[in-house]
């Protein structure tokens, strides 16, 4: 079987900008345009523009089905609001992490990870009483991320909508650069900014308008490389790296995303796990030397294997190296020390509270 990686409507723009492309979740995506370090810095200090069109979007019109497959209580999610939540299986394993948008028509839009969009669709479908209540609209929509301290001002200059009222984790429908968009105050970088959903046919026009208008802000297109180093500093988990079906929400430190007072798939398993106590927890750690932790490296303590690194890299903004790892609960408190096996040497590391980085200028 030949699986051809899909291209986003902005593929030609990336090639024209000289991006290095990579395969991610079944899509050909820009890894970097010039330098991950410089793109990372642009997002922390000015504004960066991301093509996120690989993300999946599912329309779910059955509220009862939503309540059953989504880990959080959606009954209080008012129209125009967004929640971060999980899809779990019966064993409490995490199938995906998603953003749930409460649409004006009473339905939900689920924004799901690129590589999971078909399996999420199939999973929800198997739980559905009628197939018509779920649609995969991801391949009709493009998604652009505008992130950084100058992002809100930039998008505001391109729209008549009043963005001051669009608080964190809310959205409106409007026009940006005359392109009809869902304007969502969300992101995966630890910075303020927007994610803009538009039709595939409008994506190039919106992309170019943002790059053009953003010149005075020092805008840079930013690839998946910077997206990963930015989200790690912000302590945000990456599905497939930091959690998957073998981890439950308690282990992943996501108990705040499960509403145990409602019935959803996986709830009973999570309740049981809470009663029994978990055997490992996801923690953030910083390296005490210059070594770089990587996904899959062993955590060692007293000469014994004590866990596994799930994400790790340089923290450009902080000036040291950081990671996340599953470790035994005894090692999970901030201040705990352990080693990371880097090519046979136990490099010293210390548990720190997440997030590693918090932006200095709140909304």
């Amino acid at each position: 079987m030949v699986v051809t990686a899909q291209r986003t409507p902005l593929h030609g723009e990336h090639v024209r900008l000289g991006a290095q492309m990579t395969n991610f979740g079944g899509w050909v995506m820009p890894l970097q345009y010039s330098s991950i370090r410089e793109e990372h810095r642009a997002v922390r200090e000015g504004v960066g523009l991301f093509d996120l069109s690989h993300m999946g979007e599912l329309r779910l019109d059955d509220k009862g089905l939503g309540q059953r497959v989504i880990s959080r209580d959606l009954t209080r999610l008012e129209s125009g609001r967004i929640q971060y939540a999980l899809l779990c299986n019966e064993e409490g394993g995490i199938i995906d992490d998603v953003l749930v948008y409460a649409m004006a028509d009473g339905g939900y839009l689920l924004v799901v990870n690129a590589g999971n969009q078909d399996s999420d669709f199939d999973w929800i479908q198997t739980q559905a009483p009628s197939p018509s209540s779920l649609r995969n609209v991801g391949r009709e929509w493009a998604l652009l991320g505008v992130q950084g301290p100058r992002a809100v001002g930039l998008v505001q200059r391109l729209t008549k909508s009043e963005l001051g009222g669009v608080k964190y984790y809310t959205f409106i429908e409007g026009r940006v650069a005359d392109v009809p968009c869902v304007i969502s105050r969300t992101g995966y970088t630890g910075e303020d900014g927007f994610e803009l959903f538009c039709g595939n046919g409008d994506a190039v026009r919106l992309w170019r308008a943002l790059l053009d208008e953003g010149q005075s802000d020092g805008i840079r297109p930013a690839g998946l490389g910077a997206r990963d180093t930015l989200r790690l500093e912000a302590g945000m988990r990456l599905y497939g790296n930091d959690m998957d079906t073998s981890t439950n929400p308690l282990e992943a430190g996501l108990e705040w995303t499960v509403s145990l007072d409602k019935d959803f798939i996986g709830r009973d398993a999570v309740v049981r796990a809470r009663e029994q106590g978990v055997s490992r927890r996801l923690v953030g750690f910083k390296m005490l030397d210059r070594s770089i932790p990587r996904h899959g490296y062993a955590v060692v303590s007293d000469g014994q294997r004590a866990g596994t690194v799930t994400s790790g890299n340089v923290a450009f903004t902080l000036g040291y190296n950081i990671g996340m790892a599953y470790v035994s609960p005894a090692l999970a408190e901030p201040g705990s020390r352990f080693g990371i096996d880097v090519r046979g040497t136990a490099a010293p590391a210390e548990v720190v509270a997440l997030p590693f980085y918090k932006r200095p200028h709140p909304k």
Partner: protein
Amino acid sequence: MPDLSGMRFAESHEWVRKEGDSATVGITEYAQSQLGDVIYLELPNVGQQLDAGGRLGVIESVKAASDLYSPVGGEVAEVNQELKDHPEYVNQDPYGKGWIIKLRAPKDNPKLLDQKAYDEFVKGQSS
């Protein structure tokens, strides 16, 4: 473009430039562009003996950790200490201030390529 005519290249993408009884080693422009942002180098100690094609150290970019190999045999005379605080020099100037080590009494390695042959080799790699 720096003058590379005096350099020899390994298929593992290191360069070496002999100057009298000493040789300077670094990685090529192609290698740095493939690695992306270099963030850390694990380098040998001064005095250590290296074999041609033997492991010299590790170079880490944001993307991955990769082994470095010594294009020629010899004794490590100096490591570029600047790279500790400025690993990005390897990206910015791989043939200049991004040099990695200097070797004393380097031995010849007939397997190395000249610039033209290396350029051809890289073309074959990227197509």
